[in-house]
């Protein structure tokens, strides 16, 4: 850890109700520091994905506050746009743009959001594809790639915006088991590079190896926050013990 910890995400007392009245986030607090890797676990319906998606305002919230990289996510749309430019996100369903080639998927945001010339970013995009190990697929379309390859393209696409924070929303949950590893390997490399990462996942081995802290969420609240060793081997809360007993 750096000597002075810089805050990347600061969430305080975040509460959210769905339009149907369901109280999905019940006062969540979390601080993520620059360079830190945080893994969020929890049963389905615990609100962990919803919480993650508030970090780049894909979900709104009714009470509390979230500050990302010094910018508060409130009703100011300029802040939301600014945060989204700095925060990359990887989805469970990849969400590549099927009508664009792999390369154009990568170039879309840098050219339209950052207003950079296509020729100037093409090299960066190709080297990004090399980094995730699929440079030979640059001119194919997403539909021609396997799930693992698609997810690696999705990671490369987010990285092309040079984000300061990467959010992963169950990135391996819709992959065939043998494809999970190639995606996690890319994420490990990213972690080694010092990227700040918040990851919602069920991959225990990944959490043990990469995470600085692991969080358990249940029923819209943070139950436990601990370093992985303590979280997996000596959990304090009974709820965490029950959860681990089910997944380990």
């Amino acid at each position, binding site marked *: 850890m750096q000597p002075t910890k810089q805050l990347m995400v600061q969430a305080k007392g975040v509460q959210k109700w769905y339009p149907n009245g369901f109280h999905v986030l019940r006062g969540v607090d979390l601080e993520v520091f620059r360079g830190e890797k945080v893994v969020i676990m929890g049963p389905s319906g615990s609100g962990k994905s919803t919480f993650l998606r508030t970090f780049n305002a894909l979900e709104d919230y009714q009470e509390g506050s979230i500050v990302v990289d010094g910018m508060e996510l409130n009703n100011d749309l300029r802040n939301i746009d600014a945060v989204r430019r700095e925060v990359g996100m990887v989805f469970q369903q990849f*969400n590549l743009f*099927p*009508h664009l080639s792999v390369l154009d998927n990568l170039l*879309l*945001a840098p050219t339209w*959001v950052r207003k950079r010339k296509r020729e100037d970013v093409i090299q960066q995009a190709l080297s990004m594809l090399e980094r995730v190990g699929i440079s030979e697929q640059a001119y194919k379309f997403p539909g*021609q790639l396997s799930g693992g390859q698609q997810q690696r393209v999705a990671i490369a696409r987010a990285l092309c915006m040079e984000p300061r924070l990467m959010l992963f929303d169950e990135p391996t949950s819709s992959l065939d088991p043998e494809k999970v590893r190639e995606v996690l390997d890319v994420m490990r490399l990213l972690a080694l590079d010092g990227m700040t990462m918040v990851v919602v996942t069920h991959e225990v081995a990944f959490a043990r190896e990469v995470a600085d802290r692991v969080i358990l969420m249940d029923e819209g609240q943070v139950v436990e926050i601990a370093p992985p060793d303590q979280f997996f081997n000596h959990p304090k809360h009974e709820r965490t013990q029950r959860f681990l007993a089910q997944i380990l």
Partner: protein
Amino acid sequence: MKRSPLTLQRQLFGSLANSAFTLALFALLVWAGWGVLSWAFGSAQWLVLRANAATLTIGRYPDAQEWRLWLLLGMLTSLAGVSWGRLRGLNNWPLNDRIAALLFVISAVLLPWLLAFGAINQLRLIFLVLLLLLLRQWSGGAWSKAFGKWWALVWGITYVFGLWLIAGGLGLPAVRPSDWGGLVFTLLITSLTLLLALPFGVLLALGRRSGLLLVRWVCVAVIELIRGAPLITLLFVGQNLVGFLSPNGFAPDRVWRATGVLTVFAAAYLAEAVRGGLNSIPMGQQEAARSLGLSSVQTMGLVVLPQALKVALPALGGQFISLLQDTTLLSIVGLFDLLGIARSVLSNPDWLGRYAEVYLFLAVLYWCSCAALALGSRALEKRLATNYS
């Protein structure tokens, strides 16, 4: 159990009943075909088409201004030739276009002769087809790729220029829209309506999904009101009521009023096709685009709409074909589209009773136009296909 594939022979002559049925149908076809052929080469009097070929093509367009239409045709032919060549250069161009080229040559020789266009027009048409085929041959090369980006613009400028050529004004003697007619009029009003209705329809579809309640209500009201009325009634409203209600001389020309009605009508149906496409695009696409920092307008224009239009393309193609056929209703409100001009020819005592010849000719013309639209939209579908999963 392995099932042998049904060959044509087994389908037609698999059993005694099948064979009897096949033979009976075949006999019926031969009898009907013989009837048509003996009429076409026997009692049919094709003179009506030869004598009125020019009228059917350009209506009451003044003879002295005919050169403008020829010039326009020449420009469109050149552009079409270059576009054809460029499309052929793409590796996923689906058509075997030797047949198409052959059809052009045959029709350039045969049609003017059949319709007695006269030697000069015959030569002009042959020249145009030669131009088309030569440009097709040359335009695969580097020079056309170099300004590929601007090609759509060239078409657009030519279209506007063509409207000016037809209508006149600004130096050229004006030809009033009510003097336009025939095939030229049908093609003009169809293409104009199509070009105006598509963007309008997309806006209506987007409005119908808008979060702004007032916008949504207005769009729903427009779409449902128009889809709830037959086109012919709307055309009558446009032709009679609008002229009746507006002060003398302020109502636009009847042709423009009809264009407006057709545009709004087509837009309402196109909007529903586009909405179907929009609904088929998963939320994840929008979320991914927004999470990359794209604005809502960029997300719609770069990510959602291109995919939605692709999905809607078969339905849109169908609507375009309907639109072409709907222009025949203009003849009922007294405009001289292809059908209208044919009716006026048939009302001439000289050509009394030549319905079958004229209407058969129209049917073939309409069929060819619709088939061209259908082939075009199918080719576009294939070209845009990127989903292999």
